[in-house]
């Protein structure tokens, strides 16, 4: 792999810094905060799907679990530091169990999709039906379809009265997204990440080379859930209420659309896809002429038809093409290799 991790880290820090400085001049920080959170959520699926080859239809389940884990523990503990960690650990542990069940059971991709979808549905239905006062964890009433309002929001670690909100909260979220992005970059550069990409490409070959595909996919799945859980906790703090709609299938579908539009197999694509589409939805929400879902659907169809690889791969392809042409005028810049693959005999 060309370049070094340090250089990547500096680039990410610089880009994050510039965006955090420039974007609030254009869009309000309250809206920007949720765009950043959705970006992190999309990155979690972009990691396990785009690099790990695990198509999860229930990434919203981990998002919702993170949000609920935060809200419930924040009410019981009374401050936010430990709940933030719980919001990462609970979804990760849940995903590790679910993943172990699916991957060690050698389920095919289709069944993996079905199971993650159904688990999301079960969580949605279960949380939805906990309206009565008998459903409580410690001091926190689950509240059914009304959700849980009024939990302590993010505070400075060690100072329960120093709440972080408004512009400050936006900076925290943006810094956390930058940090998660760096960690994902480091992960993909590590041997674990490179092996994960190998598994995405060919599970049989990787297991014939001695890699335990089941264990590695389970770990990857849990890492994705941890990131989604962190995004969920940040969302809970932003919305100041958690409701079962976090677990909805619509939310899960939206994450998948963000990834497709932004570009799978890239880190930046899902983040951009999420922020772009969520902002579009926000703008469309201010008028009543066109239905929101209609536009999201149209965008997806157009992308699948005309830019099936998504924004970021298309742009980087264009950039590489122009760059190489400019650097090597008049040269044949791509070596031609024989393309034809002879078919092997069966026997």
């Amino acid at each position, binding site marked *: 792999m060309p370049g070094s991790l340090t250089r990547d880290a500096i680039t990410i820090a610089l880009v994050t810094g510039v965006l955090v400085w420039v974007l609030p001049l254009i869009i309000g920080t309250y809206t920007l905060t949720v765009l950043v959170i959705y970006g992190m959520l999309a990155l979690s699926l972009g990691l396990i799907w785009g690099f790990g080859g695990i198509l999860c239809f229930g990434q919203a389940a981990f998002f919702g679990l993170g949000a609920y884990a935060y809200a419930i523990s924040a009410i019981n503990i009374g401050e936010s530091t430990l709940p933030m960690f719980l919001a990462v650990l609970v979804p990760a542990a849940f995903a590790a169990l679910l993943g172990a069940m699916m991957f060690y059971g050698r389920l095919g991709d289709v069944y993996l999709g079905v199971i993650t979808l159904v688990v999301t549905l079960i969580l949605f239905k279960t949380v939805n039906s906990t309206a009565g006062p008998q459903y409580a964890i410690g001091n926190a009433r689950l509240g059914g379809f009304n959700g849980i309002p009024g939990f302590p929001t993010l505070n400075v670690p060690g100072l329960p009265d120093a709440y972080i909100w408004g512009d400050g909260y936006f900076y925290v979220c943006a810094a956390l997204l930058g940090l998660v992005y760096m960690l994902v970059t480091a992960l993909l550069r590590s041997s674990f990440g490179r092996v994960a990409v*190998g598994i995405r*490409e060919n599970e*049989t070959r990787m*297991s*014939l080379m001695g890699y335990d*595909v089941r264990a590695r996919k389970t770990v990857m799945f849990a890492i994705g859930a941890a990131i989604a859980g962190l995004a969920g906790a940040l969302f809970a703090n932003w919305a100041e209420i958690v409701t079962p709609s976090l677990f909805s299938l619509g939310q899960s579908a939206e994450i998948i659309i963000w990834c497709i539009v932004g570009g799978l197999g890239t880190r930046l694509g899902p983040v951009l896809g999420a922020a772009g589409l969520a902002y579009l939805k926000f703008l469309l929400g201010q008028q009543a002429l066109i239905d929101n879902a209609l536009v999201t659907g149209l965008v997806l169809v157009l992308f699948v038809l005309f830019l099936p690889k998504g924004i970021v791969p298309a742009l980087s392809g264009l950039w590489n093409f122009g760059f190489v042409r400019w650097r090597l005028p008049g040269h044949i810049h791509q070596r031609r290799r*024989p393309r034809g*693959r002879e078919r*092997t005999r069966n026997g």
Partner: protein
Amino acid sequence: MDDVALETYGLTMRFGGVIAANRVDFRLRALELRCLIGPNGAGKSTFFRCITGLQRPTEGEVYMRGIETTGWMPHRIASLGVGIKTQTPNVMDSLSVHENIWLAARRFHDLREADRKTQEIIELLALGEIARDDLGRLAHGERQRVELGLVAAGDPWLILLDEPAAGLSAGDIERMTGTIRELNSRAALIIVEHDMQFIRSIAETVTVFHQGKVLMEDHVDRVMSDPVVRNVYLGKKA
């Protein structure tokens, strides 16, 4: 037991009413090169899949260097130091040749050693010119060569190859023969193959499968001139 690389006792594989492998007793010495031949449906590929863990035998036992590996998953068998190449090309197509081989080397070596090993394999197989190309864009012969590199990168002591010469040109086969000889200086090999020309050029001992059983096991010249084997290949009644 170090002089025995692989043994099977009564290995049997049934698919419903069909017995694809029937009580196969097999024994391979360390550093031996053995070819498995037989007409289509003779059971050689089933036997191959059973010893590599891709299928679980219905009955019987498999031992590798004296360790029982019956019913192990392929990754556990590979972790013992067994290199496996399946019948159809099994490679990571959208990754570069270098990355493919690195992934194979990394399983058995630390970071620095894996980089060195990758370089060594690339030189051994003369892949330097195409090392940075995506594997999916290469010709079939080159892909087969890379897959052999994946097998060799783990320094195996037992190598199992299913039809390595399938679909290769004469030049590619010659190169493949050289590589296999090279590998054989450090590892025992089992090669499932159809190509008689190729078998003649590398094999000493050949095992002939027919209807799920071992029909004959002898020196390649005697096997080729045996009337029963010739009849089996031509589809006549044995």
